[in-house]
C-alpha cells in the first residue's frame, strides 16, 4: 500500500499504480483523453498533467504514466495545471470544433472561448484506436501517417485494411465517437476506414453477430472448427 496526498486529500493506492489511476479510484477528477485502462499509457494529450512533489523536487508530469510513491504530494489545482489544461483543450477545440465531448469538457474546465482559427477535423489524435487494435486485438490495422500537424490516423494508402476484421474495438474505444459502425444489408460497415465485411449468422438463432473476417480470425487463433464458432453468445 502506498500513501500519497492529492489536493490535500490522503489517498491510499496500490504499489505500481499510476497517479491517474489512484486519483480516479479516490474519486478525484483528472481529465485525460488519450488514456484507457486496457492499453498502455501514451501521454500524448497532456490533459492529465499534475504537479508532483517528492522530497524537495516538484515536477510537472503526466499522471497517466507516473507511478505513485510513498509520501508523494500531488496537486491538480495549481495555476500551472489549470492554465495548461485549459490551453490544451482550447487547442483541441480549435482543431475539432464540432465535438460535443470536447465542449462538455470545456464547461467543466472553464474554457469559454477559442482564440485560434478553427479547423475542420474530427480526430483528436489520441491514438486509442491505433493502440487498441495493436495491443488488444493484435492486428495493427490502424496506424499513423506523416508527422507534425500533418499527422493523421489512417490505414496505409487510405485503402481498406487487409488485416482489419471489423471487430469494432476502435469504434468502442474512441473518446469522441467518430468511428461509427453500422450494419446494413448483411454487411458491417466502417465508413471511416472504407471497409465492410459480410456478416455471419448464428447457426442457432439466425441473427447476425460477427463478420466473416472475425470468424476467420477466431479460427486461426483458436483452431476451433467453424461450426463451434458460428454460435452467438446468447445461444451458447
Amino acid at each position: 500500500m502506498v500513501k500519497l496526498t492529492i489536493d490535500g486529500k490522503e489517498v491510499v493506492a496500490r504499489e505500481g499504480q499510476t497517479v491517474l489511476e489512484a486519483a480516479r479510484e479516490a474519486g478525484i477528477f483528472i481529465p485525460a483523453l488519450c488514456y484507457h485502462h486496457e492499453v498502455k499509457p501514451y501521454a500524448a494529450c497532456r490533459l492529465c498533467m499534475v504537479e508532483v512533489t517528492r522530497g524537495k523536487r516538484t515536477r510537472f508530469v503526466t499522471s497517466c504514466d507516473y507511478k505513485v510513491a510513498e509520501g508523494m504530494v500531488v496537486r491538480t489545482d495549481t495555476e500551472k495545471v489549470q492554465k495548461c489544461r485549459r490551453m490544451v483543450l482550447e487547442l483541441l477545440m480549435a482543431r475539432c470544433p464540432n465535438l460535443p465531448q470536447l465542449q462538455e469538457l470545456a464547461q467543466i474546465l472553464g474554457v469559454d472561448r477559442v482564440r485560434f482559427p478553427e479547423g475542420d477535423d474530427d480526430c483528436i489524435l489520441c491514438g486509442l484506436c491505433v493502440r487498441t487494435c495493436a495491443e488488444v486485438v493484435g492486428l495493427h490495422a490502424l496506424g499513423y501517417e506523416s508527422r507534425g500537424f500533418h499527422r493523421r490516423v489512417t490505414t496505409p494508402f487510405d485503402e481498406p485494411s487487409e488485416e482489419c476484421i471489423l471487430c469494432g474495438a476502435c469504434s468502442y474505444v474512441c473518446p469522441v465517437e467518430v468511428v461509427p459502425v453500422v450494419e446494413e444489408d448483411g454487411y458491417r460497415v466502417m465508413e471511416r476506414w472504407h471497409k465492410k465485411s459480410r456478416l455471419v449468422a448464428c447457426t442457432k438463432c439466425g441473427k447476425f453477430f460477427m463478420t466473416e473476417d472475425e470468424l476467420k480470425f477466431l479460427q486461426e487463433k483458436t483452431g476451433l472448427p467453424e461450426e463451434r464458432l458460428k454460435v452467438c453468445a446468447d445461444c451458447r
Partner: protein
Amino acid sequence: MMAMTEVVVENVEQNVKEVLARYGNNPARMIEILQDLQDIYGYLPREVLREVSHQTEMPLTRVYHVATFFKAFTLKPRGKYTIQVCTGTACHVKGSYRVLERLEDVLGIKAGDTTDDLMFTLETVNCVGACALGPVVIVNHKYHAYMTPAKVESLIKEYREQ
C-alpha cells in the same frame, strides 16, 4: 504539357530480399532498408512497402508510418534532378528563402513537388553544414554555393541542357 512519364515497378520481391539480406534480415534497420530500396526505385512504391512488410513480418502500418514520417523518403516518383535548397539558419539569414521562391517561380512547382516532365524535384533540406558558403543549393549531390535569385534561371538552364 507533357504527360507524366510512366514509372514501372519491377523485381520487387527480389530487390527486397537482397536489401534485407544486407542488414541481416533485421527489421530494426528499417530506415536503412527503406533508404536502399528508395535508391533502387527513386522513390518508395506501394508494392515495395507491402513486400517489405510481408518479408519482415512487420505490420504494414508500422512500415507505412516510417516511410511517411522521415523526410528522407518519398512515396512519389522523383525527377531526374533533385534540387535541394538549404534552409538552415545561416543560409536563411543570407536569403535562401528568396532563392527558394525564385526556384518555385521558374519551375512552376512548390517545394516538395516534381515538375510534370519529371525533370526536377524541388525540396528544402535542413542544414547541410556548409554554412560559411550560404545560401547553398544542392543538385544531385553537387553543391552550389553563394546562390542568389539572380543565378537561378541560369542554373536551371545548365541542367536542362545537360
